[in-house]
Every structure is written in C-alpha cells, then in structure tokens.
C-alpha cells in the first residue's frame, strides 16, 4: 500500500453505495475529523454530498452496500478496475448484512414485495462484494467504527498498512469471564463475531448481534445447539443468527459443515 502514496499529491478517493441504508457513508459524514479529511483527500466521487461525480482512477474506493442486481455487480467490477485499493465499508459490503436477510424469504413470498418485474429479472441474491471482486480491506460493522475509518485513512496517508482486528468481540468485552451474557442465558453472539468494536453494544448493556459479521471459525451448529438447550425455538434462533450471519449459516448448511464453512474467508461463497 505504501508505494501508492505520493508525497505531493492527495490520494484520489471515491465513495460508492449499493443496496444498504447508507449508514456507513453517514458515519463518515458524522466524523469530527471530516474537515481535515476533506483537506487531505481528493474526493472525486461521493453522490451523497457532491454534485459532480467522476469515475476517475481511484487510489482508494470505499464501497458500502450489498450487491442485489446484475447491474450493481457490473458497476462494482468497473469500480474495482479503476481502483488501487478497495475497502469494503460495513456489514452489507463485507457479508451481505441486513439486505441478505431477504435471501431467506422464499422466492414466491418475495414476489409479494417486488413491484417491478424488470427489477425482479435483474435481481440476484443479496451478496457481499467479495463474491465479485477482490477486497483489500474489510471494515466491519453496522455501521463502521469511526475510529477505524480515521485510523485507516491516517495509516494510508503515512504509508502504513492497516490490519483488521483479529479475534472475536469477547477479546475486548467488559463482561468477559463470570459475568458473560451466555452464563445468564442471554443470546449474545460476541464469540462468533469479528472483534474490533471495543464491544460497544455490551458496554451499552446490550448483547452482541453480530453486526461485524461472523468469524471464519464461527460455529453456527454449536451455537444453535446451545440456544436450543435454553428452550429457544428454531425460528427464533434462525431469526437472530440470520440478521448478520445469514450468508455463512446458509453456506455451512449447504456444505453440511458443523463447524467452519470450509469455503472462502468469512463464509462467502466463491463466485
């Protein structure tokens, strides 16, 4: 990454949004450091705030949202071909996120919610962007963490490579040990989830809902068994696990794996 930075030239940056709530782009706009970032980066593409947007040659492309149509997939590939570094921004881009929940609705049922036949024809299962292109950095979360975004940009500007946090949410959890939510039979998905959020929800008195997506090692079968042993029924368990972990859970099941999905990183299906 280091050689991509030229000392006298601002990095050309683009923000792109596919199917999502735009909460990650808003998180960027909500940064206290926004003025400095605007100063240090040459933002050429950001539909949410710019009138004139160019598909330039990008040093960094930040991509949020899941891919839900063939048209979106084509655009994503075009962005990749023009970008040196491509960052998946948030749960939808990294794992399919909330939009991927629709993959669990039976197709007939889906018809009730689709109003546009042309769109239905173009429509595909909601998927993470890595099913179509190579991703250089996964910025997990729903939404992304402000600190992580600022850290990533600052690292880039000083020629350093950013590394994703390793390990589950539990590694930073204040309830780790005897105080664990699981010991109270509360559905907390922290052990299955990419850490790096400083266990934000648990600090606010709420269990983890896996918004940073499932780890490679997330064991859906074991977790399901545990929750079932508490008396939770199947529908409730699937509902909770599919919010952010649906794609991996589906792949695990398809592959008959009790443990690791055994395919690509984070359980993403191979293109």
């Amino acid at each position, binding site marked *: 990454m280091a050689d991509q930075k030229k000392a006298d030239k601002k990095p050309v940056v683009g923000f792109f949004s596919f199917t999502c709530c*735009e909460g990650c782009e808003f998180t960027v706009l*909500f940064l206290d450091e926004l003025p400095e970032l605007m100063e240090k980066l040459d933002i050429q593409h950001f*539909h949410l705030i710019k009138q004139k947007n160019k598909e330039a040659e990008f040093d960094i492309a930040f991509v949020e949202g899941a891919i839900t149509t063939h048209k979106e997939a084509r655009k994503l590939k075009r962005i990749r071909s023009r970008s040196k570094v491509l960052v998946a921004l948030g749960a939808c881009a990294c794992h399919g996120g909330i939009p991927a929940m629709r993959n669990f609705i039976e197709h007939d049922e889906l018809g009730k919610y689709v109003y546009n036949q042309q769109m239905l024809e173009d429509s595909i299962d909601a998927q993470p962007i890595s099913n179509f292109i190579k991703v250089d950095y996964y910025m997990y979360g729903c939404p992304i963490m402000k600190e992580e975004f600022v850290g990533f940009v600052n690292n880039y500007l000083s020629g350093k490579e950013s590394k994703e946090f390793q390990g589950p949410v539990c590694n930073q959890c204040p309830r780790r040990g005897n105080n664990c939510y699981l010991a109270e039979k509360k559905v907390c998905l922290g052990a299955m989830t990419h850490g790096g959020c400083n266990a934000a*929800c648990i600090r606010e008195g709420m269990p983890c809902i896996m918004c940073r997506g499932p780890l490679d090692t997330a064991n859906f079968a074991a977790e399901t068994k545990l929750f079932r042993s508490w008396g939770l029924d199947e529908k409730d368990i699937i509902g909770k696990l599919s*919010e952010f972990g649906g794609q991996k859970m589906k792949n695990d099941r398809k592959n008959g794996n009790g443990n690791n999905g055994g395919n690509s990183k984070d359980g993403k299906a191979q293109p």
Partner: protein
Amino acid sequence: MEIMAGTAKMAKLNLEHVAKIEGHAKLHIKVKGGKVENVELRVLEGARFFEGILKDKKYNDLSHISSRICGVCSVVHTITSIKAIEDAFGITVSEQTNQLREALNIGGIIQSHALHLYFLTLPDYLGAESAIELARTNKVTIDRALRLKRLGNQIVHTLAGRDVHPIACVVGGFSRFPLKERIDALLEELKSRKEDAIKTVNLFMSLKYPDFTKSVPHFALTGGTYFYSDKIVRCEGGACFPTHDYKDHFKEYLVEGSTAEFATKEGKSYFVGALARVCNNIELLTNESKQYARKMAERKDNPFMNIPAQALEMLEGINRCIIILSNINLGESPCAENCVKSCECEGIAACEAPRGILFHHYKFDDKGYCTFADITTPTTQNLQHLEEAIKGRVQQLIDRSPDEVKLEIEKLIRAYDPCISCSTHFLELEWEAE
C-alpha cells in the same frame, strides 16, 4: 446531461446522477407544445423487502432491524418500531423514558437537518459544487455546520450509545441510564450551540427561494409535545384523526416500474415534514421560535419553506432539549418490565421523523413473532406532492435552458429532503418534448 435529438420533434434529456439526495430515482418529463403534459417519478432503489424480512422475527429483534432501513433516520425508526411493539403488547413506559426518547428523537432530527441544510442544500444557493468546496470558501459557515452536526451526534451518542443505529434504546425504555456527567456535558454543549442555531435560522430565512407555490394540505402529529406527539394526526385547517386510524385515511399505492410506494389522502397528495409541523403546531413551539414560525406559515404553500422550517427546528430542538435535560430526574428504572402477551396482538405507532410522520404497524402471533409489518415513511407520503410540484415548477421554467431547468428541479427535489431509499443515489431525468 445531454440532449439527444432523436427526431426533430423529440428531445430527451438525461439527468443522471442527480446527487445530494438520499435515494435512487428516475424522473420522466413529457412536454408537448410548450406545456408540461406529464411528470413521472419512479424510484429504482435496490429492493430490500424490509416488511418481508421483519416477518417471523421475534418482537425484540424488530427495532434493530428497522433501524437499518435508513442510516440517517435510524433513531426515529428505532423509536417508532419500539413504540409499535409496546402498543401491541400493552407495555407502558415511564415518563422518564418518554422524555429521554423525545430528546433522542431531537438528536436524530438535528443530525439530519444539519446535514441536509448545510451539506445538501446550502451549496445550491451559494453556487458551490459541494460542501467540500464551501469548506474552503465559507469556512466560518461550514465550521458552524460541523458544530451543529456534532451536537446532534452527541445527543444520540449520550442517550443511546452510538451516532448511527442506536444501541441502548429498547422495548420498555433504555438498556442503561445515560451517565450523569455526560448529561451535564451535553447540557453545556446545547447551551453553547444556541447561537449557532439562531445564525442558522437567520441564514436559511435570508436565502432567496424561488417564487413558487403548490397548495396542499399539511399533516403533522399533535397532542403531545412538538417533537414527540404520537396519538393524533392533524391536518392544518382541517380535521384530526387518531394515529391508529391512519390506514383509513392515508392510502399507499404501488406505481408500476417503481420500488417505492406512494401515499395519498383520499386520492390527493399531502405534505409532511418540518414545514407541516411548523404550520400545524405553532402553539407548541417555544416563544423564541414562534416569531420565525409565523413568517414561514405565511408562505406555507411554497415547498421551499421546508428548508427554513428545518433550520427553525434546530433552534427549537436545542431549546427543548435544554428544558428536558435540565429537569430530568433519573430516578426510575431505565427499562419497564417486558411482559409479552401470549395472544395475537397488533400495534401501531407514529413519530415525527426528520422528514415527517413515520408509521410502523405490526401484528404478532401468540409466541411474540411478527406476522405482519407495514412501514409508511415520510418520503412515501411526500412523493405524490413532489411529482405534482415538479410539474408546476417545470411549467414555470419552460423557456429556460435545460441546464437551468435541471438545477432548479434538483433544488426543488432537495427542498423536500427526500430519503428515497434510504438506499440509493441518483435520479435519472428523461425529458421528452414534442
């Protein structure tokens, strides 16, 4: 933008990538003999089927899924979702919870308005390409915008734990108390931002808005406080009806070729949002705001007045938040007992979102699973009026150059602050002339 002359009589104007709105839509305008014959607004966002994915989910999972409908309105989707669940299960919350929720909702409104006014709207009126450009040329103004935006974030973060997709706002109340020292710090910040809010009102009242009117009924919630009424829907100068009956009055319909719904009141368009709130609820405003509100109400048929009305709500929101947080006594348990009825039930709730009235409507089975979900967003309700207003505005501008028409239509669209998807970004304009 390009003009392609297909035949001598036909012209097509492609207005792709209209930026600075939240959404992805297409506009088709047909002009015949110098008269605007038809305007069709079609929403093309990637469908996410929220009402489908909420089905079969347990009641206490609905609010954080609904929050993800929109990154900028996540606060009010969370609150409204929770209120609809509480309505269904008959859960009563403490006065303290209601006050904190009101302050939280104000935080969400300040976040959204600060962004919309200064980042999406102001560049139009100062002839700038974007707020990025304004940050260089009008640093003082953009610094003020950033302080107000930060204030909105601080309110939401203090009360609910995160700027976007609040964490601590749950069925029954809050998962924890906000820390006393953070409430105190927030109060200090609110007081020091008042001057910024007054400057904002004066700035947005002084901008030269197009002389354009499109008369339409304005609807807003009333019966409680300005930012936190829920029981009654009021039409300015007209009748009121209970929130629970909203389906009898507001009809949603699907438009072929569009993934969003349009809503009408007895087949006619109506307007919700900041201007509608100001017009309907002047008496609920603090005295400081009333003087400004009266001036806006005089021009209520001009949809561009929605812009200064949002500015006024920043001031009113700050004043109201100071009152709430100065007097709040965090004595009660943060969260009411969640006793879930073991029978089928149904709940409806409404809240004033940054862009107008938001409805959530759910049905549950005897185990607490959602069997039906219906969400009516403010933009759904404004689309029909927006379409009609565009028609009127294009007619007004018929002799101007395509470039000018394009910019003016975009300005009009942005005045409604549409959050079309809450998911996408561009508007394609097709212009057909004979």
